[in-house]
């Protein structure tokens, strides 16, 4: 078990390192190179001559270490990251970490809130549509979720703000009250954005769970549960859900990643001072340290969720934990002499074993 955790941690670390290289490197891909923003800065509202501007650029380049070789710059940056320095915002001259600290709370509230709503609403509905898939109500709900998936966040946010905020005055259309002002006022401002953001993830959860639940409900072991006279609550929750929930757990990191993107739009519309608006401002102002820092943070969040999801799966599913005791023959013609099952592939093959097939493939 410990080896699984260790291996998985290593993979996450490597992923993040690769990520950091890409994040750091994109700056060099833009026209003008990393010096472009400094050139802009230098020309901001001053009436320098070309020569003076050039000297200013030179001085700033040296100051920001842009003359050193790229890998040294990268190393310095990475070193800074590990020490908690993400650089200084070109725009506000404040350390990036400070800005993140100030704006973190509302964004996290939005993301976690939307994630919780999508799970608390999506899981029961996903189960229900699977259990009642032969009735009209189940099919209708599933169809609705299909429409729900295609709703664009931006559009929905604007509509909600307009209808519930400006027209009906149920919630404020814009604005934000931090938790320090009390839970009531905070929720009053946050409910609409959270619900808006959660619409699409909820639909994803419903459809995914419906899919895996339907499959599980058809499986031989669920039939055994029915044949032994277990009450339906036990069959659905203890027997079926434990098997069906796996794909949802692997879905969560993907939802988080898409929520990170959705946050940007929703915060913008509802005017919430979170990381989303921060990144929009940073991009508009070509504030590279800020952008870099925020993207890196996003990467870390997704990597952490991925790691947690993988570890949760290995806790829930004992087959993944120990590798597989039985072998599936995946050795095909072209050089694949080793029939080494990928983690989970053998497990999936076990679940889908057709009734008439004998147990051996050896």
């Amino acid at each position, binding site marked *: 078990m410990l080896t699984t955790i260790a291996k998985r941690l290593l993979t996450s670390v490597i992923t993040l390192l690769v990520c950091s290289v890409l994040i750091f490197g994109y700056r060099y891909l833009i026209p003008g190179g990393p010096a472009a923003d400094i050139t802009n800065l230098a020309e901001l509202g001053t009436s320098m001559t070309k020569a003076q501007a050039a000297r200013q650029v030179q001085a700033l380049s040296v100051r920001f270490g842009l003359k050193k070789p790229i890998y040294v710059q990268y190393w310095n940056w990475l070193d800074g990251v590990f020490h908690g320095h993400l650089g200084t915002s070109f725009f506000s001259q404040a350390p990036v970490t400070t800005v993140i600290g100030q704006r973190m709370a509302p964004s996290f509230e939005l993301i976690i809130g939307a994630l919780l709503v999508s799970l608390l609403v999506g899981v029961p509905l996903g189960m229900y549509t699977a259990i009642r898939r032969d009735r009209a109500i189940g099919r209708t709900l599933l169809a609705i979720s299909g429409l729900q998936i295609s709703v664009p966040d931006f559009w929905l946010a604007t509509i909600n703000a307009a209808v519930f905020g400006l027209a009906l005055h149920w919630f404020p259309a814009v604005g934000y009250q931090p938790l320090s002002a009390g839970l009531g006022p905070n929720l009053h401002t946050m409910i609409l954005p959270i619900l808006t953001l959660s619409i699409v993830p909820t639909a994803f959860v419903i459809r995914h769970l419906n899919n895996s639940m339907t499959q599980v409900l058809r499986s031989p072991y669920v039939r055994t549960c*029915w044949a032994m006279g277990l009450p339906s609550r036990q069959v659905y929750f203890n027997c079926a859900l434990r098997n069906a929930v796996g794909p949802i757990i692997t879905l969560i990191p993907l939802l988080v990643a898409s929520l990170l993107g959705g946050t940007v739009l929703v915060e913008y519309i509802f005017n919430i001072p979170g990381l989303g608006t921060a990144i929009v401002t940073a991009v508009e102002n070509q504030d590279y340290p800020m952008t870099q820092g925020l993207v890196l943070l996003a990467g870390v969040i997704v990597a952490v969720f991925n790691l947690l999801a993988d570890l949760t799966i290995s806790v829930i599913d004992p087959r993944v934990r120990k590798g597989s005791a039985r072998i599936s023959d995946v050795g095909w013609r072209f050089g694949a002499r080793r029939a080494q099952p990928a983690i989970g592939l053998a497990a999936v093959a076990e679940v889908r074993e057709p009734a008439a097939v004998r147990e051996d493939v050896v």
Partner: protein
Amino acid sequence: MHQGETLLTVRDLRVEFPARGGVTALRGVSLALQGGRTLGIAGESGSGKTTAGLAAMGLLPPGTRVTGSIRLGERELVGLPEKEYRRVRGRQVAMIFQETSTALNPVLKVGDQLRMATRAHFPGSKDDVRARIVAALESVRLTDHTRVLRSYPHELSGGMCQRIVIAMALSCGSRVLLADEPTTALDVSVQEEILALLRTVVAERQLALMLISHDLAFLADLCDDLVVMYKGQIVEAGSAQSVISSPAHPYTRALLECIPSLHSRRGTLPELREYEAPSAQGCGYRHRCPWRADPCLEAPALAAVAASAERSARCWRSAEVLRQSVTESESVV
């Protein structure tokens, strides 16, 4: 031949699936299960043998039309509401299927699954439940209880998994056991073990066992009585030994003939003619029957053969067929 008490009686059972354009899976099936005896149901796919088992368990898909009677002791099962059926399943009648290792939940330990099933019918103390489970495991000759209870299904062999499912049925207390192709997915040697196990369990606990299979040799070994089904009807019934040694219905004869035998290896196996949809009138088998004659345009009923109360066949010429079979078996001996 010892007459145990009759535990399950099926009378004129008819099952229709209206969803699939009105497919009639069972057309008037009647049989009885007695404690301490094994009834074999032989048939190929489409014969309705599995449907009969599922009907008794109430596990047919919603929307299926079931008419007739299935009596379990005093209780009538046809039309029983789902809530009450749940108390019957497992406790009064249990079913085991062809799938062996996939019949158990892969993410739960075997012990947890046994506990869940037992407690659904015997909600006693932890010790009581454990005692029941251990007794059931003993019956199926799984002596290493602690290890088995702690294992996950994928760590156990197919044969062991099938024993555990049988143990689950026993632990739930049912006296009627329906087994649908329980050993088809297992090796021949394991098949023998499970066969022997079922024989012992039936005798020890005086269970009524209904064994559904397409393998006549397997049924011949274990069953006391045998019923042969074809396209939703019983075409022959009687003691297993007599039906197999001297069949009285052309279909039973054909089935027995087209099984390759180990010691009399013939060149070409006799084949049944290609299947055609049975017409509404007349005997459903006549298109493929080498004994076809004029009376067959009228559907025969399941009638006693040759004044024997123990055997019946659904054929106008069953007496002749029986005579022929007897002559052949005598000439072999």
